[in-house]
């Protein structure tokens, strides 16, 4: 992104620069912890123990990571097409709405159809909400960044209205739908693995995690192994060159946005279909925005997105445990770390590349 590109060896580009920015972001978070009068080393130890110290902790960590994989992939796919999709929150919201409507309208599907039907509805809802800005940019020239922001707010008001007036649980003051049918909801991981003799504690981790892993592989195949993926990358690199090569940037913009929105819908699958078993207000809880940090840190590559999602899963679960012991360090710390990471790995990428290049040169000169 820097105008004067710094040449770095490939390993430094894909691994060292993101690692340095993560380290710097965690350092900033540590300073915040010091600033509120806590010991950052003790906090880190508590955080890691909470996230990875027990089978239960790991289950929670992977459950959070599932959300980040979906939202991170959503942002990453759009990035490859040169698009910045800030609308993950809104797209996940619409996915949840579409899924709830599907589940409540067709409650009596047989078991093997109910869950796939609900998942497809979620993907379609998310895809539609992302297709609109894609279409508006491709055909009407309005920028996806602004339209996705605006549509986030439209989705937020829409779900309030729908949960209160249309699909809300009758007689309930809570903004939530009735429970989905037992056939539609996803199996918790500890039940799923029990027949194989694997004994896991009960956690919110469910089969949506497997779906997320499949999505990682599918996105890798899509972007680097298909004709469409090539078209997406070409448009992202240079839309005019793509047009000369016979690729329609308008079509690719719309398709990439739709895929991105469908992936964001995975958040609704994990939260509503996998854990809550009904649609509740505010289930997106900022995961969509942290997805931007995940995608930037993972450099848009599914492997990177997976690792970054795992890191944020650790931070989320560990942060929750940490806030039990240290009430001053709330989970909002994850949002701060996410923000600093977006700044460092995204906007200040040029600075960090220059830093890493400088260090490598000194290292090379000394050797």
């Amino acid at each position: 992104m820097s105008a004067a590109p710094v040449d770095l060896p490939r390993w430094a580009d894909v691994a060292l620069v993101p690692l340095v920015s993560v380290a710097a972001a965690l350092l900033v978070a540590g300073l915040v912890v010091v600033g509120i009068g806590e010991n950052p080393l003790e906090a880190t130890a508590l955080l890691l123990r909470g996230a990875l110290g027990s089978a239960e902790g790991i289950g929670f960590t992977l459950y959070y990571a599932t959300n980040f994989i979906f939202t991170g992939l959503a942002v990453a796919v759009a990035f490859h097409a040169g698009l910045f999709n800030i609308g993950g929150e809104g797209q996940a919201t619409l996915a949840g709405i579409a899924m709830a409507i599907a589940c409540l309208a067709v409650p009596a599907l047989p078991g093997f159809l109910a869950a796939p039907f609900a998942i497809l509805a979620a993907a379609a809802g998310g895809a539609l909400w992302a297709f609109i800005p894609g279409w508006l940019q491709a055909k009407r020239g309005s920028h996806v960044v602004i339209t996705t922001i605006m549509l986030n707010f439209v989705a937020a008001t829409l779900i309030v209205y729908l949960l209160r007036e249309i699909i809300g649980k009758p007689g309930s003051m809570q903004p939530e739908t009735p429970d989905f049918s037992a056939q539609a909801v996803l199996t918790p991981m500890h039940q799923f693995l029990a027949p194989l003799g694997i004994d896991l504690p009960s956690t919110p981790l469910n089969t949506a995690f497997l779906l997320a892993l499949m999505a990682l592989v599918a996105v890798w195949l899509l972007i680097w192994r298909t004709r469409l993926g090539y078209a997406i990358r070409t448009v992202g690199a240079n839309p005019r060159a793509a047009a000369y090569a016979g690729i329609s940037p308008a079509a690719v913009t719309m398709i990439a946005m739709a895929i991105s929105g469908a992936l964001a819908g995975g958040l609704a699958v994990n939260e509503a279909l996998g854990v809550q078993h009904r649609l509740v207000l505010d289930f997106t809880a900022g995961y969509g925005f942290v997805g931007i940090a995940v995608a930037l840190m993972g450099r848009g590559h599914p492997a990177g997105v997976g690792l970054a999602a795992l890191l944020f899963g650790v931070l989320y679960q560990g942060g929750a445990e940490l806030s039990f012991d240290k009430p001053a360090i709330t989970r909002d710390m994850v949002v701060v770390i996410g923000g600093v990471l977006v700044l460092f790995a995204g906007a200040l990428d040029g600075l960090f590349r220059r830093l890493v290049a400088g260090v490598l040169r000194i290292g090379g000169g000394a050797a």
Partner: protein
Amino acid sequence: MDLLQTIAVVLDSMIRLSIPLICAAMAGLWSERAGVVDIGLEGKMLVAAFASAVAAFVTGSAWIGLGAGILAALALALVHGFAAITWRGNQIVSGVAINMLAAGLTVILGNAWYGQGGRTPSLEGAARFGELTLPFAGWARANVPGLGLFYDEVVSGHAAPAYLAFLCVLVTALVLKRTRFGLRIRAVGENPAAVDTAGISVAGLRYGAVAICGVLCGIGGTYLAVAQSAGFLPHMTAGRGFIALAAVIFANWCPWPALGACLLFGLLDAVAIRLQGVTLPGIGLVPVEAIQALPYLMTIVLLAGFIGKATPPRASGLPYVKER
């Protein structure tokens, strides 16, 4: 007379709800006219609201609160400038980062310092901006039919930063349109290379615009926490920075139309609050959410070129690279 009274009350609440929008819209206008896209208005207002509430509580002075709010927003604005101007980073990404930072930091610090889930203690007396009664307000209400009522209800009776906000619109319009500095700001947003050729620093001008943007966001955030409310609440900006952004687009990046758009969006908000739980004949219970979603929907429709056309400054969002 009852109808007039109702209209006056709604217009009064329109003004109150518009003030943060007006400040943020002017802020966004400065930044974007200079070619720096800013979706971090929301975050800057949020830190300003937090810093002003804390400072006003600690010192007991609303004015010191205003100063602290401005400084906090200015600091974040300079972070944005550092990323967007000095390091030519992606301005959207930087704006997202600023919003996330603000949302997280304010709650963490508020919770650590006051332990009320991120709220700051409520402000009383001089720690809050009181309502100013303009001269002759009571007299006009009693003696001038119609207009006097509006003068008393709508024009008079707002906090000091509210009048400051309107002053900012006037100053923004005059400076951008009529001064050399304003011309240069507009030029750097349209054609930075030409400005550079004339021997004027592109980065300097852009930093100036970004700093003004921070100051204005600071006023808006302070108004929210220290005038409209009596303290900071987590996430209290609640999307106002984005509505302000919508207002700027709606107004085609011009100050007076932006003021109009902010007042319109403020009016929608006031009407939505007024109609909460009201049943109208023919409609039934008013879907307040539809009114709340209107500013966003209107912006989408406008941007799509279905009504009018939005033309952003030509160099907005593009980092400037000097030829080597």
